[in-house]
C-alpha cells in the first residue's frame, strides 16, 4: 500500500516507492520535487520565500536557497545520488491582484526565479514545471515513476 506523505508549508520530506509525497494548497509558494531515476528516491520541499538572506529563521525548508541543498542531503541518506537528480516544480502563483503590484505581491514570481537559479547552480536539470497564474495547486509526487500530479479548483488536473 502506498502511503501519502504530507509536506506542510515551509517543510520538506523524502520518500521511496510506492510512497507518494503530497503538498496541499500551493499559492505563491513553490513545490520543488527531486527524483533519482535509478534508485527512485524522491523528495519534496514546500518553500515560501526566495532567499534566506531576507530574514533570520531556524527553518531551512522555508527558503529556496537553503531548502534545495537540505533536500539533496536528506535524499542522499536514503540513496538519492545528486548527479542523477531531476527536478519538477509547481506553484508560484499570484493569488491576489492589487492595483499597485509591489514587490511582495510578486513573491510567487520571485520564488520561481529563485528556485530555478538554485537548481542551475547545483546543476540539477529542470524536467517540467507548472508555475505562475493566479490559482492554487495541490501536488502529488510519485516515487515510483517521478510523475508529478497537479490539481487545481477551476483548471482541472494534469500530470507533468
Amino acid at each position, binding site marked *: 500500500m502506498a502511503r501519502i506523505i504530507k509536506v506542510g508549508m515551509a517543510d520538506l520530506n523524502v520518500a521511496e516507492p510506492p510512497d507518494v509525497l503530497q503538498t496541499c*494548497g500551493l*499559492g505563491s509558494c513553490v513545490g520543488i520535487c527531486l527524483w533519482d531515476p535509478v534508485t527512485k528516491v524522491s523528495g519534496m520541499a514546500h518553500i515560501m520565500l526566495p532567499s534566506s538572506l531576507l*530574514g*533570520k529563521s531556524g527553518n531551512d525548508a*522555508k527558503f529556496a536557497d537553503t531548502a534545495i541543498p537540505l533536500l539533496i542531503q536528506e535524499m542522499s541518506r536514503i540513496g538519492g545520488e545528486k548527479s542523477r537528480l531531476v527536478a519538477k516544480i509547481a506553484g508560484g502563483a499570484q493569488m*491576489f491582484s492589487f492595483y499597485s503590484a509591489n514587490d511582495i505581491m510578486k513573491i510567487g514570481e520571485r520564488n520561481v526565479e529563485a528556485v530555478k537559479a538554485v537548481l542551475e547552480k547545483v546543476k540539477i536539470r529542470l524536467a517540467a514545471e507548472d508555475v505562475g497564474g493566479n490559482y492554487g495547486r495541490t501536488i502529488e509526487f510519485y516515487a515510483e515513476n517521478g510523475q508529478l500530479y497537479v490539481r487545481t*479548483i477551476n483548471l482541472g488536473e494534469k500530470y507533468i
Partner: protein
Amino acid sequence: MSLYEKISEFQLDAFREIGTIGAGNGATALSQMINKKVGMSVPAIRILPFSQVPDVVGGPERVVAGVFTTVKGPAPCNMLFMFPIESAKILAGKLMGRKYKDDEEIDYYGNSALTEVVNIVAGAYLNSLASFTNLSFVPSVPALAIDMAGAILNSVLAQIGIAGDQALLMETVFTEFEENVTGHFFLLPEAGSLEKILEAIGVKG
C-alpha cells in the same frame, strides 16, 4: 524560533480586548449592510506554526473566498477574511439581492460586493484600533481570491514569514444566524507591530 515568546498572557489578553471591540464594530457594520443580526465570537488568539494555519479554516484544500488587505502605518498588519464558498455565495447574494445557485460561480458584481463588505468591516475594525492606540492604520484596497484555503493563506503568510516561522492570529468568527453564514477574520501583525500596539495602549509584559 518564536517571535512572540516575549509576549505575556496578560498582553495577549489586552490585545484580545481591543480586538473584541474592533470586531464588534465590524459586526455592527456588517449587520447594517445586510440588514440582519450578525453575531461574533470572542476573538481567539493563537500562535501557530505556519504549517498548521490552514487547519483553522478546515484544511488547505477547502475552497474559500479570501479577501486580503495590507495595513500600513507605524504598526503594519495584514487582514484576511475567509468565507467558506457556500457562505460567500449567500452573503454575495444578500448584498446583490439575488441568489447564487450551487453550481454557479460568483460573478464580477458579487465579488465586488464581497470586497466592499470587507473594506467596510475592516475600516470599522481599524477605526477602533486607531482610537485605542492613537496610531494610524491605513488599509489598502482589498483584493479577492476564490481558491484553496492553503493557497490563499500561504500567499498571505509569505509576507510575515520573512521574520519568523509562526503566525500570531487573531481570529473572530462572524455568524449570520438565519442562513448560517460564517466568516473567519484574521489579523496578522507584522514583526514588531504587536509590540508597538501594546506599547501604545500602555500594557507592559
